[in-house]
């Protein structure tokens, strides 16, 4: 079966984001960018299903412009078979992204769609659920375990009370959580080889999709800093301080 893996390019998780001086957004120029870590887990899971002989072709897709290709190269270097760039310079919100991915899904007709449970930039965590809704297919969010059994995906999901297992008829959308797998390191020769794999480009504007934002970001600010604390020298002093403020 074919797996479609949707990935996003985000500011690397080790970098502290900076708000642009004019407040119009977060600075991404000359900042280290990487594949969203949850999406990397999605690519890895597709690769493991391919090793098991369940998935036969892995198609990576991202939406963006210019350097957005870098994350597709990363997915190709990990082992994805081919990649699609939906070229767009627009600021896309989750609903618009879902509509674009729906168009890609309809072209590719995969049995499995894998993507991260959230992107670490806007922390929205919506695209998988929205895509499944628009496609009218089942969803397995926050997956920590995935098995394909016949025509079903058996998904163990991390939930607030522990974990839950659901069975989804294929095709289905799976969003990946941290403990699903540990993505492989990409070796330099693989990265070089990935440069030779073709990336197909689709113009987002050719898809005829309304991608106008529903949400307007009117302000970005640093969160208020906590007032500086103090160092204590011993457990006894710590207990005394905590008692004096009524914390214990």
């Amino acid at each position, binding site marked *: 079966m074919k797996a479609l893996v949707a990935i996003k390019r985000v500011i690397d998780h080790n970098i502290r984001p900076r708000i642009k001086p004019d407040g119009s957004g977060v600075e991404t120029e000359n900042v280290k960018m990487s594949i969203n870590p949850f999406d990397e887990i999605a690519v890895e899971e597709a690769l493991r299903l391919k090793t098991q002989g369940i998935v036969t072709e892995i198609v990576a897709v991202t939406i963006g412009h210019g350097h957005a290709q870098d994350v597709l190269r990363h997915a190709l270097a990990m082992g994805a078979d081919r990649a699609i760039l939906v070229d767009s310079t627009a600021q896309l919100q989750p609903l618009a992204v879902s509509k674009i991915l729906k168009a890609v899904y309809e072209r590719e007709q995969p049995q499995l769609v894998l993507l991260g449970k959230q992107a670490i930039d806007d922390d929205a*965590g919506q695209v998988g659920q929205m895509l499944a809704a628009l496609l009218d297919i089942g969803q397995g969010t926050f997956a920590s375990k995935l098995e394909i059994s016949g025509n079903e995906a058996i998904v163990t999901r991390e939930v607030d009370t522990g974990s839950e297992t659901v069975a989804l008829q294929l095709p289905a959308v799976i969003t990946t959580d941290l403990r699903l797998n540990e993505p492989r390191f990409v070796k330099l020769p693989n990265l070089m080889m990935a440069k030779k794999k073709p990336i197909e480009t689709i113009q987002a504007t050719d898809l005829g999709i309304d991608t106008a934002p529903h*949400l307007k970001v009117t302000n970005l600010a*640093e969160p208020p800093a906590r007032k500086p604390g*103090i160092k204590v020298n011993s*457990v006894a002093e710590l207990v005394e301080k905590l008692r004096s403020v009524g914390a214990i």
Partner: protein
Amino acid sequence: MSILILAEHDGQQLRKAARQTISAAQAWGLPVHLLLVGDDTAAAAASAAKVAGVARVIRVDAPHLAHPLAEDVAALVVSLARDYKIVVAPHTTFAKNILPRAAALLDVAVVADVIGIKAPATYARPIYAGSVLATVENTDALQVVTVRATSFDAADDGGNAEITSLPAPAANGKSRWVSEVRNESDQPDLASAPVVVSGGRSLGEQFHQLLTPLAQKLEGAVGATRAAVDAGYAPNDWQVGQTGTIVAPGLYIAAGISGAAQHLAGMKDSKIIVAINHDPDAAIFSVADYGLVADLFEALPALTAAISK
């Protein structure tokens, strides 16, 4: 027009996050309706009807809703949504699974993880693991919102809402519930515990031995970093952080936690933060009210002993 809250319950009563959402919803100044789904919501509905600020409790009971699936509950929310101006729920795994699905079917956006409602369609929400606060205006006529429960006080009892019942849509044919594993423990609910004692991977095999007695003394819950969970020292639902549980207790004790941004995102709104770490340069000290540079394996038992005195 009214507000619909997708309210999580345990079969007997509302979860605390639902009460916190009821209190958040008062900002809109519209009647608040609760939607309770399950196989038998009678007891939970009776208890929910007593919460102050609730005008109506809507019960939707069906055998297939005993373990609600996103596909089913989203369809239900969509069928009700046209009568509402706002659909809101706490930002829990339950609602995060359902509301985006419902919103897409309604062709509207979701404003996720809201920590403040500034005007009827203007919200404050953290992005980049809380490193940036965004003010967001939602232009949709129907607002779908998830709120960070810990940013709002829990609504108390004092109401007398009417209880109505609606039939459930038929079960969807695309997904089915198989099983669940509840990480049962005696400890209080992490998200709402008044005290949280969290540990990092460096506690190793002694994770429980060092933290649990301290948490019990303080009548608190034990939390963990992602690394400690990945290493198998703590169950997944103990993870505090950007992608785990967000906590804001009165007292947060971080033991052997370096203070990665992803962890800080889940606890830096705690009232008092104590950091104990052997590394004086650990980032956790930058958010701590009280920092102690010490060997954990000595300091934690000493702290536990000192508190009992």
